[in-house]
C-alpha cells in the first residue's frame, strides 16, 4: 500500500555493505561538505561519476530509489528555474564577464548563467547518490554507534537510533488511525475542501501525537529502570573494529577534502572560472 515510501536499510552483500558504518559516515560527511563548499566543475563532475559507480557496485536497483529520484528531479528543476527567474544576471556577477547567448531583456541568457546552473545541477547529482548509498546500506544500530564513534554524545546517538527504530512503528500507527477515521467518514482526498481536510488531518494527528506522548513516558521509565545514562560512556553491541579497507576509504575522503582546499587556492575562491 503506502508503505515503503521511505528510504530504509536494505541488507546486502557488496563491498559497500561490508564497510564499517563509521567509515561510511565520515566519507559521507567529508565529501558532502567538500561538494557543498566548492563550485569547481571538474571536481564536481569527478565526484558525480564516482558516486554513480558506487551505486552500481552496491547493487542498488532503480526501483528501490526511483520514487525518491523522481521527486528530487522535479524539485531540482523547479529550484533551478526559480534561481534563473529571480536573477538571470547572477552568473555574470559571479564570473565577472558577460557572453550573451540569447538577448531577451530581463531574461537574457548568458554563458555564465548557464554555467552557474550547470554547477548547481552537478551539486545535486554529487550528494544525492552518496546519501542514498549510505541510507540503503547502513544498519540503523550501526549508524547510532558510528555517530557516537565520531564524537556525538551517546545520548544523542541513542536518540537518533530510537528515531530510526520508531519511524516504521509510527508509520504503521499513522495508517491504522487514518483507516479507522476514514471508516467513520473522515474525508482526506482532494475532493474535500481545505477546512474539511485540515479537520480530517487533525483527527488523525491528535490521537497519533497523544498516544506517542504516552509511549515516551513508558519507554523512558523502562530505560530509567535499566540505568540508562548513569555512566559517561557506553559500549555498542553492533560495534565493529576498523579494517584495512576502512582506513583506505577514510584516507580517500581526507584526500578529496585536500583536493578541494588545493582547488580553492588554484581558483582563488569557490568558483572555477573558465571565462577569465
Amino acid at each position: 500500500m503506502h508503505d515503503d515510501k521511505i528510504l530504509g536499510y536494505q541488507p546486502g552483500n557488496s563491498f559497500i555493505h561490508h564497510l564499517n558504518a563509521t567509515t561510511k559516515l565520515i566519507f559521507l560527511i567529508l565529501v558532502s561538505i567538500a561538494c557543498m563548499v566548492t563550485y569547481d566543475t571538474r571536481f564536481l563532475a569527478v565526484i558525480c561519476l564516482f558516486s554513480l559507480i558506487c551505486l552500481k557496485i552496491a547493487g542498488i536497483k532503480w526501483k528501490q530509489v526511483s520514487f525518491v529520484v523522481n521527486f528530487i528531479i522535479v524539485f531540482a528543476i523547479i529550484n533551478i528555474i526559480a534561481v534563473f527567474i529571480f536573477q538571470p544576471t547572477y552568473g555574470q556577477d559571479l564570473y565577472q564577464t558577460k557572453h550573451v547567448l540569447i538577448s531577451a531583456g530581463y531574461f537574457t541568457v548568458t554563458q555564465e548563467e548557464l554555467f552557474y546552473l550547470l554547477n548547481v545541477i552537478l551539486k545535486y547529482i554529487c550528494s544525492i547518490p552518496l546519501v542514498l548509498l549510505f541510507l540503503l546500506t547502513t544498519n540503523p544500530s550501526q549508524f547510532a554507534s558510528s555517530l557516537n564513534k565520531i564524537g556525538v554524545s551517546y545520548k544523542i546517538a541513542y536518540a537518533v537510533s530510537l528515531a530510526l527504530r520508531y519511524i516504521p512503528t509510527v508509520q504503521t500507527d499513522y495508517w491504522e488511525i487514518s483507516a479507522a477515521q476514514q471508516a467513520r467518514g473522515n474525508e482526506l482526498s482532494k475532493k474535500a475542501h481545505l477546512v474539511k481536510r485540515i479537520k480530517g488531518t487533525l483527527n488523525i494527528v491528535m490521537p497519533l501525537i497523544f498516544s506517542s506522548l504516552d509511549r515516551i513516558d513508558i519507554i523512558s521509565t523502562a530505560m530509567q529502570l535499566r540505568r540508562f545514562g548513569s555512566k559517561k560512556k557506553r559500549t555498542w553491541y553492533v560495534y565493529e573494529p576498523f579494517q584495512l579497507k576502512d582506513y583506505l576509504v577514510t584516507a580517500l575522503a581526507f584526500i578529496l577534502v585536500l583536493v578541494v582546499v588545493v582547488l580553492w587556492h588554484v581558483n582563488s575562491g569557490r568558483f572555477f572560472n573558465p571565462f577569465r
Partner: protein
Amino acid sequence: MNQKGLSVKSVVAIGIGTAIYVILARFTSIPTGIPNTNIEIVYPFLALLATIYGPIVGFSVGFIGHALSDFLMYGQTWWSWVLATAILGLIIGLYSRKLDLEHGVFTGKQMFFFNLIQLIANLISYVVIAPIGDILIYSEPANKVFLQGVTATATDFIAILILGTILLKAYAATKVKKGSLHKD
C-alpha cells in the same frame, strides 16, 4: 533523581519526537492551492513538543527531524533550513517556562503571548537564518531565498497559530488541574 546532562526522558522525547516529525513531514502536508505552499502540521507539532519538553528537546527534534526527513524524502538536505527549524524549536521551548500546561492551564493571555513568541521565532528562523545561510553556503540569489523565507514564515505562523494553539489547548485539557480535587 538528579542527572548530569540530558535526562532519560529528554533522550526518549528526542527519539520518538523525531520519528513522529518524520512521519508528519512525509504524510501530512495539506496543499493550500497556491503552488509550493503547504500547511505543514510538523511545525505545530514541534511547537507542542518544545513546549512540553523544553528548549533542548525543541532544538534537537527540529534539527534531527528536519535533516532526517529531508534525507529520507529528497536524499539531501539544506542545512540552513535545518538550523532555522532547530532555532524555531529552541525559542518556543525557551518560552515554555512561562506556561504551565502540565497542570492543565492555558489561558487566553498565554495563548496570545505563545503566538507572539512563535511569530518572532518564525521571523528569526526563516527571514534571517535560513536565507542568510542559503546565500553563504549555497550562494543562491538573495531575492529568491528571501521570498522563500517570507512565504515559509507566513504559512508556518498561520499553521502554528491555528493548529498549534488547538494542540496545546488539547494537551492541557488531558492534564489534571491543580486543586481540582476537593472534599465533599
